């Protein structure tokens, strides 16, 4: 399973890009405490959207409102055109949910657990008998299909949870911290699986703290804090706004250091140059400046040995953004 970066294939969807989740001024209060504050969120068909934010930001609360498991205090929600608080059955029949703390009936086998879910979904018996082994097999649990879930590891339970989602054949999948507690390899495989689902045309909304993972699979992300969606967009867009670019280009060149530095600094889009070692310059720029930098080094009479680029990371965006946000609030 390879993790490819987003949007390499067009999924076979109904109307690509139509909004399947839409909230407007969505608010949830617990007493005086506002858990979700005037949230406007739009997720389009076929995309993977990441909800990011610190603990207690309101991610789980938002997800519960999308599924009609919690009543919003005010504002409106539309999921696939349905209102989850009035038409929860329509929503829940089409949306698969993987909760953050996932549990099964330990004394029942994997097959029996899914059979119960199939019956709750009103799947005909024959159809369920076909889909259940297929879904379990696909998640690599074929060997243990008739073992009680009590014997399953955390990773196996997580995969059984996804098998349950596959069984429902949903249009949207909502996952709350899906890779929490998985080892790095399992997490990697899990992300690959998310991308496969995306390629099958399923819209995915996931919440997470694990930013580098989110960056690998999400088309767009939203940063959540204190119940508010602070900013949202593609990682590149966020980098542009928060880090004003965030590209870091490492240039290794010998020759007149001053001249090279001046030439690099003159390039459009360069924000800062650091000379970290005698023959190594680090350019902070707004976009990919590699070609320009190579030209500048040669023109300044230097010899170019190496050119490396580091794309902006979500980690950095996140920490810079929340540092600015808390500084702003503190002053």
């Amino acid at each position, binding site marked *: 399973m390879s993790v490819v970066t987003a949007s390499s294939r067009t999924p076979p969807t109904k109307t690509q890009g139509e909004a399947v989740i839409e909230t407007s001024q969505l608010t949830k209060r617990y007493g005086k405490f506002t858990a979700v504050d005037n949230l406007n969120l739009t997720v389009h068909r076929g995309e993977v959207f990441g909800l990011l934010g610190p603990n207690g930001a309101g991610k789980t609360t938002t997800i519960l409102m999308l599924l009609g498991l919690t009543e919003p205090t005010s504002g409106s929600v539309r999921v696939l055109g349905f209102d989850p608080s009035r038409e*929860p*059955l329509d929503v*829940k029949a089409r949306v698969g949910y993987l*909760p953050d703390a*996932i549990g099964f009936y330990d004394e029942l086998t994997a097959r029996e657990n899914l059979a*119960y879910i199939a019956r709750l979904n009103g799947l005909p018996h024959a159809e369920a008998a076909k889909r259940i082994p297929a879904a379990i097999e696909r998640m690599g649990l074929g060997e243990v299909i008739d073992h009680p879930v009590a014997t399953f590891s955390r990773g196996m339970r997580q995969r059984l949870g996804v098998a349950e989602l596959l069984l429902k054949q949903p249009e949207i999948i909502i996952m709350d911290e899906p890779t929490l507690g998985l080892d790095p390899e399992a997490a990697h495989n899990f992300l690959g699986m998310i991308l496969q689902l995306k390629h099958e045309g399923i819209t995915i909304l996931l919440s997470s703290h694990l930013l580098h993972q989110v960056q690998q699979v999400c088309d767009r992300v939203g940063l959540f804090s204190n119940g508010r969606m602070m900013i949202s967009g593609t990682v590149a867009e966020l980098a542009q706004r928060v880090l004003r670019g965030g590209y870091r280009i490492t240039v290794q060149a010998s020759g007149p250091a001053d001249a090279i530095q001046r030439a690099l600094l003159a390039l459009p889009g360069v924000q800062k140059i650091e000379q970290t070692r005698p023959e190594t310059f680090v350019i902070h720029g707004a976009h990919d400046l590699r070609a320009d930098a190579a030209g500048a080094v040669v023109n300044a009479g230097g010899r170019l040995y190496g050119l490396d680029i580091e794309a902006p990371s979500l980690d950095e965006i996140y920490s810079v953004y929340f540092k600015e946000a808390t500084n702003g609030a503190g002053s």
Partner: protein
Amino acid sequence: MAQAVEVQSTTVQPAGQVRRRKGSPWTGLWAVVAKEMADHLSSVRMQILEVLILLTAVGTVYAVMQGVRQSVGQDPFIFLRLFTTAREPLPAFIGFLSFLVPLIAISMSFDAVNGEFNRRTMSRVLAQPIYRDALLMGKFLAGFFTLALVLAAIWLLVMGMGILGLGLPPSGEEVARSLIFLVATIFYGGIWLALGLVFSVIFRQPATAALGALAVWLFFTIFWGMLTSLLARLISPVTYGTAQELLRQIEWEQALSRISPNTLYVEATLGILNPAIRSFGILLPSQLEGAIVGAPLPLSQSLMLMWPQLTGLIAATILLFALAYVLFQRQEIRA
């Protein structure tokens, strides 16, 4: 804020439709019932209690048969005696039932809701296209049907033992009376089932819920009887010692004791299983006018007599279930 109000007004449906939920609240009910019943019937907890109730049934009925065999042919309600007669040192079978049925019922429901939270299956199950109503009702009905199944089996066993041991079939009236008794017993269990359900919604710890339900049961089994006479004396004291005063106090005591499901159950079962009983209170001479003392009441009269108790049992079951329902609807789903 003004903006929020604006947005809302455009999305809200025509008045009256706003809060209506779409789809049947019972979608998925039978899936829940089937799963829960399978759980109950295969659980060790239930099997232990089933064996216990089986042993008491066999033991008491066998003991009774030793005693009543000689009156076969004279007593027209000899099958009913199997349920009601006590033979030292054993109490009557209905005595055992009034004790064991609450235990079985509570053992089936005390971890019904909190168990789902503790296993973290609640949010997964409610993310399926069902309402909470179906989950709670399904759990209640599964317990109720299991109880009905077990008690019906015991009923068949007792009747079978009677046919073999006494050498004659039960009369139609005996079958009818004992079936009504069966229904009363099932609803008596229903009360404790619903009570266990209420506690399983309130307390997250199954042990706390079980203790709470058992405390209520103990209270009514042991203490309520003592309290009623005390309370009756407080509410309606006998100062001059007139018959009227005494009567009033006894009436109070009786009314108070009927708050207990145990009293309702015992009165209901005695009323239907013992055709000689014509009233649960003190018989005033005026009530006995024209009646032949000791003559059995016809079935319809016995039914009339125990009707308030039977409906009381059913109403209490429904009320407690409604309480569990309201509490559960208000509960936050996140674990």
